[in-house]
């Protein structure tokens, strides 16, 4: 009786959707989204906000349940997905550049990017290099010129560990600018971007490396001067007056993307369903609103290119990490 009703309901739902997906995979019941962090972080936000919009758009039958699985900077969730959830086509896991960085630096021992299915990105937060308002540096080239003379001339503070994404952004920019002896560039690691920024504003450290959303408070108050944003084009809205590194002649881009991966061994139909779902979500007005209110910038590689993008990013980070001697 119950089964019959369920089948009828699924059939009705399938009919109601587009014809192309009539025969294909449909999620049924509860969908899970693992946020590999404690409540409150970026991954948690990704799961919860995407979950809400997926529900609003009726791309999922019931609710999306966010599960927090903190540990090893996402490593615990990655290991869980690889070893225990193979073939589970109702599970999304939030990921970002932090995930690719750790994969590139072999910080998830015995695991690599091929062990999961990369689904898609829903936006990005772009890297910035900033100084305090009293700093002698007024554009990125002045800063980089000082570093070319002496790589220890400018000290950077950021919220990630040494070798983490905030550190890598400095190296990406310095490399593009032609600074030599990258391992000599001093990088000071703080618990979070806010702590790092107060040290820069307090005059204890020369420059800040982080993401644009972190800087907005101090940017508006005028305490912080952003020398460059590491994006392809200028950012929309109020942020459009910040120059990119590219237009200053330094070809450095550093998107901290937010997106998802899924377990290995899922049907192609199921994978296609979720890739399409992320596409539809990204195109929706609801998601645009979420992006706007949370400072998330446009970033959405074509679904066919996302996996290649992820692997390219991992390769780039690997090469850079080798160069600074972080990995062999």
């Amino acid at each position, binding site marked *: 009786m119950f089964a019959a009703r369920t089948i009828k309901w699924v059939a009705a739902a399938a009919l109601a959707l587009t014809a192309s997906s009539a025969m294909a995979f449909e999620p049924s019941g509860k969908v899970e989204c693992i946020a590999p962090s*404690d*409540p*409150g*972080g970026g991954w948690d*936000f990704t799961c*919860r906000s995407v979950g809400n919009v997926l529900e609003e758009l009726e791309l999922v039958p019931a609710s999306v349940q966010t*599960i*927090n*699985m*903190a*540990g*090893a*900077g996402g*490593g*615990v969730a990655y*290991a869980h997905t690889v070893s225990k959830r193979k073939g589970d086509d109702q599970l999304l896991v939030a990921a970002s550049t932090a995930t690719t960085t750790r994969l590139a*630096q072999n*910080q*998830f*021992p015995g695991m690599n990017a091929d062990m999961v299915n990369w689904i898609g990105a829903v936006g990005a937060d772009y890297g910035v290099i900033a100084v305090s308002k009293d700093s002698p540096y007024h554009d990125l080239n002045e800063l980089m010129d000082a570093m070319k003379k002496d790589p*220890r001339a400018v*000290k950077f503070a950021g919220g990630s*560990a*040494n*070798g*983490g994404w905030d*550190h890598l952004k400095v190296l990406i920019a310095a490399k593009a600018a032609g600074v030599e002896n990258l391992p000599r560039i*001093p990088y*000071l*690691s*703080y*618990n*979070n971007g*806010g*702590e790092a920024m*107060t*040290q820069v*504003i*307090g*005059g*204890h*450290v020369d420059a800040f490396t982080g993401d644009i959303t972190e800087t*907005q*408070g*101090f940017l*508006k*108050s005028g*305490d912080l001067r952003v020398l460059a944003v590491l994006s392809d084009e200028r950012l929309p809205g109020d942020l459009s007056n910040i120059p990119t590194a590219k237009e200053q002649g330094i070809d450095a881009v550093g998107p901290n993307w937010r997106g998802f991966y899924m377990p290995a061994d899922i049907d192609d139909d199921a994978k296609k369903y979720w890739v399409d779902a992320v596409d539809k979500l990204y195109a929706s007005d609801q998601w645009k609103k979420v992006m706007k*209110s*949370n400072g998330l910038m446009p970033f959405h590689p074509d679904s066919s290119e996302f996996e290649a993008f992820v692997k390219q990013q991992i390769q780039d980070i690997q090469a850079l990490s080798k160069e600074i001697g*972080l990995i062999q």
Partner: protein
Amino acid sequence: METLHYLSLGFGVALQPENLMFALMGCFIGTLIGALPGLGPANGVAILIPLAFTLGLKPETALIMLTAVYAGAMYGGRISSILLNIPGDEPAMMTCLDGYPMARKGKAAEALAISAIASFMGSLIATIGLILLAPLLARFALTFGPAEYFALFVLAFATLGGITGKNPMKTLMAAAIGLIIATVGIDLSTGTQRYTFNVLELYEGVDFIIAIVGLFAVSELLFFIEEKAGAGREMIKVNPLKLKWREILSIFPTTIRGGVIGFIAGVLPGAGASLGSFITYTLEKKIVGKDGYFGEGDPRGVAAPEAGNNGASSGALVPMLTLGVPGSGTTAVLLAMLVSLNITPGPLMFTQNAELVWGVIAALLVGNFMLLLLNIPLVGVFVKILSVPPMYLLPIVTMVAFVGIYSISHSTFDLYFMIAFGVGGYILRKLEIPLVPVILGLLLGPEMEKNLRHAMQISDGDWSILWSSGLSIGLWLVAIIGLLLPVIVGPILRRRMQAAKSKVG
């Protein structure tokens, strides 16, 4: 004048019936969460964030409820410290030292009442401080660079001997154990893993809460099992309250000192409530000197850390509200909540979100009165929950602690780890090695190391950076005095006392 205007605006927000109701609810839940060992303010707030979202609360209402939970947890932490000798949360650790002995002497009700009043005073002083000094202090916090932070942590360690001072070697050993445990995990300054043996769960180091719950709650359970098998153990009963005005007045100076120092400790990002209660306790012990009977149930030993940790909890809101920098674990959680409510934390919050910020400040004042009123008459209710015989209570508490730990990380590994800490804590207590320095080493070790290495990087290896500013020199001097005073003055005092005695005799 402007401040008064904003404050009245804030009261307008805080006194709305809906906000009042959620503040009351937050106070009650917070006190309960604080009282249950293992669940501290940070997890309490973290657990209730989903509730704020599901109820679809307005930003100011959500923040008012959560700050009420925060303040409530600071009040509640003392209840199990006093009655069970298990700190309800980390900042309540110091309250055990005199609260539990008081309770064993049959003065549990007095200890609870004194600590409630001290909590109220600490919180009141710090909230007034927050109102008056917030814009100013935000700038002061900026003057703390790595060298100043390093000196501050050295000061904390230098005064460590004062807490459990019977055997300095054992205190030192305990602090060293804490420092050793603190090295586990990723080394932020080089990005390499230390002592993690490819175990993913160890990559982010040892979680503070797990260590605390294991060392205190689980080892307490083990002790209980052992004693039950032997002679058995007396149960703490809550006596009818007999507190005289004179006694309340006698702790007045203590609470004022505690509140002020706690507030300062709270304002400094990264220092937090634990440090606040710790410094106030040691300082109070120093000030009172030989007149006191600290460690044996001195009411001032209960009042000082409670005023200190409640002062610090309000103080920690200063860097959060003015700079967007969390001053403690709990404010970090609150900050995350603000960001998800689409409020950009930072120096402009005071002007751009004036209604929210001042609403929360006014709610802190209102909530503080609520908590005092809740905590004096309702202490019976909270005590009822904890005064179930230990043979039922301890397993329940342990279970709650297990569930609490599990609910944070959803990892069974953490539970095994907690049990390991419990066994370790049991052994240390058998060897009469104090547990508090272990926790402090674990808490302050990574920050101290990080700041030293940052200072070295900034100065390119020149050690003189550590004493190159007036502020750091001042901190070093206090640290040296704190370290040497007991060594130099102790014997002199003892000699004088003996001399005085022999004269009398």
